[in-house]
């Protein structure tokens, strides 16, 4: 077992370095300290990262450089950006998954996010023909088919309707889909990052349908996008009348182009692909259309060669976001184990945590907002003294559905269904605090 660098030790070593550096010129001193700190990190036992290089000039008792000068003024950046020290908190992709970047996917850096809301610039991306840049004044939504009054709306029209705001997660059903056959992804961002949660604002689809008057034969709705893929999905009328939203804003501002600007659908709790972006057309019909994204794709092939279709709901799922491969344990002692749970069927009722690969479980606390079909944060505080953990979380939702083990899921579905892999996930915490992705069967 490797040695854990405690805060005090680190500080003592830094202080010693600072003493040795005395008498050098300011520049030499800084260089010396930088090297010293690097050496210190290198000396840290296998992989336990020490705080990134630190300039001790800015540490107490010194007055830091930023406290001895003025910063920039208002509207220096009219649209504010995160601190430059947060440049690592970005969406990322796994390039070999797709032929190129235009029909591709990127993932949300879940390990660095707090609370349940995903900042707009970090919401995962999935395009089939790239991001169209749409002039909202030239965008139209046509609602037609089996309706009394086929209607056409401008964006101004749509924003005249009474608005509704809802916090809902959105998840690609292929989230985790690379791991049916075995553990492959060495980071939380790639095992679970096709997942985000925003406050969405728009018009309930039922209000628009009421405006057009659905004929009694109307049973399904085709939603279609204005991108080059003309992305299309069939949605049962029942869902449309229940909680589907026609959305123009996320987290308080208008939709980002990546998220469907100026208009998109949100089908709460359902696979993300049904939440058509750049929405331009809704057609009411009496049967589904069986388009490419509900036959060739987004159907779940089982081991017997038969495939499940219209598998809309994202069943209860959870993952521990701290610790995780990107956030190894750096210090022994007190630790808060945190994570996210979500269910397409409603509220998260309970999350349990196992330290021994699923043999025994203890309940975690839900914290902050607990909303239906939204990310829900859970937490458990404990101590870590260098022991090896096989860390798991297991969610239960308001319907009593309990997240399955990988073994249970594979027994019924085989390993070729790509979509809807919501099994209990395992992180192995090694004695040095490193966290790796493993599967337990």
């Amino acid at each position, binding site marked *: 077992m490797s040695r854990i660098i405690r805060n005090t030790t680190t500080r003592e070593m830094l202080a010693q370095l600072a003493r040795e550096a005395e008498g050098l010129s300011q520049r030499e001193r800084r260089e010396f300290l930088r090297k010293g700190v690097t050496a210190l990190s290198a000396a840290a036992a296998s992989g336990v990262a020490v705080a990134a290089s630190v300039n001790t000039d800015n540490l107490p008792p010194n007055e830091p450089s930023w406290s001895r000068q003025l910063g920039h003024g208002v509207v220096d950046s009219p649209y504010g950006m995160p601190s430059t020290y947060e440049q690592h908190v970005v969406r990322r992709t796994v390039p070999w998954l797709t*032929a190129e*970047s235009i029909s591709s996917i990127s993932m949300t850096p879940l390990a660095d996010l707090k609370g349940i809301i995903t900042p707009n610039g970090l919401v995962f991306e999935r395009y089939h023909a790239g991001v169209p840049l749409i002039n909202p004044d030239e965008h139209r939504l046509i609602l037609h088919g089996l309706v009394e009054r086929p209607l056409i709306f401008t964006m101004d029209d749509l924003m005249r309707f009474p608005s509704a705001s809802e916090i809902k997660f959105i998840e690609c059903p292929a989230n985790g889909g690379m791991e049916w056959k075995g553990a*492959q992804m060495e980071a939380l961002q790639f095992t679970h990052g096709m997942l985000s949660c925003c406050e969405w604002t728009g018009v309930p689809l039922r209000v628009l349908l009421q405006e057009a008057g659905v004929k009694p034969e109307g049973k399904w709705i085709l939603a279609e996008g204005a991108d080059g893929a003309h992305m299309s999905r069939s949605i049962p009328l029942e869902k449309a009348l229940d909680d589907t939203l026609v959305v123009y804003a996320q987290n308080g501002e208008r939709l980002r182009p990546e998220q469907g600007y100026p208009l998109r659908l949100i089908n709460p709790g359902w696979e993300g692909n049904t939440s058509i972006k750049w929405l331009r057309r809704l057609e009411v019909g009496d049967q589904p259309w069986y388009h490419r994204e509900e036959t060739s794709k987004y159907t779940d092939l089982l081991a017997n060669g038969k495939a499940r279709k219209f598998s809309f709901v994202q069943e209860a799922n959870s993952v521990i976001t701290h610790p995780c491969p990107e956030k190894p344990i750096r210090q022994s002692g007190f630790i808060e184990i945190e994570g996210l749970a979500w269910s397409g069927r409603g509220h998260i009722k309970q999350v349990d945590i196992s330290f*021994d690969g*699923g043999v025994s479980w203890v309940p975690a606390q839900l914290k902050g907002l607990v909303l239906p079909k939204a990310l829900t944060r859970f937490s458990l505080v404990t101590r870590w003294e260098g022991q090896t953990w096989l860390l798991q979380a297991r969610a239960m939702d308001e319907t009593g559905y309990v997240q399955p083990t990988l073994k249970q899921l594979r027994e019924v579905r085989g390993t070729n269904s790509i979509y809807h892999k919501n099994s209990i996930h395992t992180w192995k915490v090694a004695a040095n605090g490193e966290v790796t992705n493993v599967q337990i069967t």
Partner: protein
Amino acid sequence: MFKLPETAPALLGVGVLLASLSLSAAEPLGIGRMATADEIAGWDIDVRPDGQGLPPGQGSVMNGELLYESRCASCHGSFGEGIDRWPVLAGGYDTLTLERPTKTVGSYWPYASTLWDYIYRAMPFSAPRSLSVDETYAVSAYVLYLNDIVDDDFVLTQGNLARIEMPNREGFFVDNRPDSPNTRCMQECARPDQLEMVGTIGGITPVGHFRADVDAPAASHDAQKSLEDQKEEARLRALGVEVDETVPAAVALSDEAKAGQAVYEAACVACHATGLAGAPKVGDHKAWGPRIDQGVSVLIRHAIEGFTGKEGVMPAKGGRMDLTDQQVSRAVAFMTEKSQ
């Protein structure tokens, strides 16, 4: 713009309006206007299994072959086998129960209507909605032919498409989940001696941003490309091959080129950023040098009219016949200035 519902008196107070709305929630609010038949027809492109939505028209396997070769094969392969990671369109019969199934139009898709609908709405990838109705029938017929579903003398029409029986039409069932229930067990939920642990395969996940000294892919397509270029350069150097070290200076673009960037990104990037189908990559001055030497007017003509060279087929206007000649020539300016 701010039209009131026709039935509402023009000078209603806000309170009165709200009250009247809440009283008759089922009444239309009168927002938006009736869509005209023309407006709907232009966008109503969807087709479903019973043939509803198919426009009149037809296309033969024979005509489809020519189209497919020029408009589709660069990505999907002459036999539908898929080039590089582009989708496979044909074959894969009897693989659905195998360890690695090949899901294609022939082996997996339940309805032929899906093929027509998808091609008409989304293909070819770099120029969606550029195929005419008859071209869509022809190229669909050809993809069915590549899958042994129709013969080589077949003509696909509005009338016969819905009658084509796809091999896997019985292969689907409606969602019946939950199918894998667990219970909320708290103690002795598994026998520790029976648990097996499998770790991750190293080296295939982008982890360079949080782990040092790993040989891993980058976390974006662009970064991965430059990583691979660097590795290739290092490999060539190790072999003693001379590597061109000149770092291209950032060029200031002309106004013409600046105006062309958006066109390039919308219509040309799919091939010219990646070298797809043999297209010279933008920024690759070796590939562009001899072409630029022909004179810009030749390049513009080739881009507008289309051009078949040693590397492959440059479709007229990149397949985007909706572009004006001026837009294309601006895109050429952007591409050549970026590649000098």
